[in-house]
């Protein structure tokens, strides 16, 4: 799950936040690889409160993907990401969701993220 308010621990580093989860998902690439794909490798050892909101969102996405899941809930996960980062994050999410044979529910304001949805609802 990626919360709208992210629910990260600001006084811990990005890496510590990711490793904090009780059980790790075995069907995901290594954490550093995911961070690299989202352009976050250089920031892994920085305290979360020093990161921008967009960077925090990417850390929250990596943390959500690192947990074992069957249904991934994402509440406005890309609200502070540019298009390039949105695309990278979408590819990663798509790939890991498929690898985990899981479902995904995403809510977003504005443009639809580049993911393959079975259903889309506009409210």
């Amino acid at each position, binding site marked *: *799950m990626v*919360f709208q308010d992210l*629910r990260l*621990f600001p*006084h*811990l580093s990005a890496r*510590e936040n990711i*490793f*904090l*989860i*009780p*059980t790790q998902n075995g069907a995901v690439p290594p954490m550093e690889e995911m961070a690299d794909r989202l352009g976050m490798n250089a920031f892994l050892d920085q305290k979360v409160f020093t990161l921008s909101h967009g960077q925090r969102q990417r850390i929250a996405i990596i943390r959500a993907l690192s*947990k074992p899941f069957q249904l991934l809930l994402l509440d406005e996960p890309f609200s502070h990401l540019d298009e390039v980062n949105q695309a990278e994050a979408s590819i990663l999410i798509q790939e890991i969701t498929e690898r985990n044979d899981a479902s995904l529910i995403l809510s977003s304001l504005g443009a639809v993220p580049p993911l393959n949805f079975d259903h889309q609802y506009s409210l």
Partner: protein
Amino acid sequence: MVVSPKKRLQRCLQVAGPRKEITIASLGCLIGTTLLLLAVQLYQDANHYLEQNEGPKNYFTMNKKVEGGALVNLGKKDESFSPEELQAIQALEGVKRIGGFTRNQFPVTVYIWPTGKVGLGSAAKADLFFESIPDDFLDFIPGEWHWEENATLVPIMVPKFYLDLWNFGLAPSRVEYPSLSTEAATGMPIEIFIGRERTTTLDGRFVAFSKRINSVLVPESFLAWANKKFAEPAKEDFFFLWKDSVIDSPPRSRNQLLEMVDEPAFSSWKISPLGDPAKKVPASSLVGPGKKKPQPSRIILEIVDTPSTALLQFIEENHYELNREFPEQDFIKKALLGLFFGLGLVGVLLSLLSIATFSTSFRLMITRSADHSRNLLLLGFSCEIVSQIFFGLFLRLFFSIVTISFLVSQCAKYFLVKKAESINIYLPSGFSSESLLLLGFYAVLFALLKQRVIKKSVHDLLL
């Protein structure tokens, strides 16, 4: 640096309680635990000491009340118990067994030589008495507690407090008398002079100090022999002997008359008291039951527990007196029990207050980190794991408090033991297994209570 998952969880909760309240609670808990531990241990020590130094609870001596002044009592009113009276006492509720004191029937003077050698230094001289009781009633039978005719030494047993009287009363007031340890006191030679003219001298020695019997005791066999050999019959034990209505002078003692029982004409003879020659009774009346043997004027009773109401009423009705050795120890025991109970109560109250303050402080701590705790719960951590982080913090603090409390109590106990030693009271050092068990039980109970409070507070975050 690798950080353990537990440490990471602690770090992410950023737990910090209200310092002032936690300090006050810790201090209260420290003082409460220390007082409680000391109260329990010191009560055990005091109890142990008193038990070691007191006469047993269930042994009493009984005698008839002595009334009137010296002039009245010079008439030697008979204060002994008759066989019927003894039987009635034995039959009372709660009386396990009774035994009679046999007393000496001859004058005794003793010279005690505290220097350990007869003739060296000054002797403590005293007109004394001897008593004996059946060996079963002694609190212990010393190895030398045997006497046979022609034995060189008469073993003597006196109450332990006689030695205390000597050491703390007589010896400090007289330069020629040294203080004596139990061992030194048992080595003192004692000269025993028998008779008004001190015609016979025997050697004696203290062989033991009794905590049960409040008398100067010698073996039964010795007193039986000495009474037979040296007894001076009392006036009332002399009679005129009437043979064929004529007084056969001189007056005869009871023992002399009893020796004549086998003479063929004995049954026809009569006797009368010296003071009242006209009051003639058959000489055979001397041989009746209970007449042969002098009856005890003091008896020792073993009773089941404390004296029963029936026994106390019987004593009151018959004008008897019941004595018990060292009764003031009851008061001391009660006072100590009250003191340590009070100390323990203050300890318990402080501990309860500290539990309450700790509970409030930890609730506040949990509320302060509520957001982080909720995040952990949403990340998939169970309530148990989140509670354990707070409980772990409490346990670390509590363990330190209990350890410090134990060390403080050890120091306090050490100084108390040293202080007690300076006044000749020897207490065991360290803590008994009972006290340590109680400390363990207290710590576990305290910790379980805290665990419950913490769990509940964390559960409340989910609501």
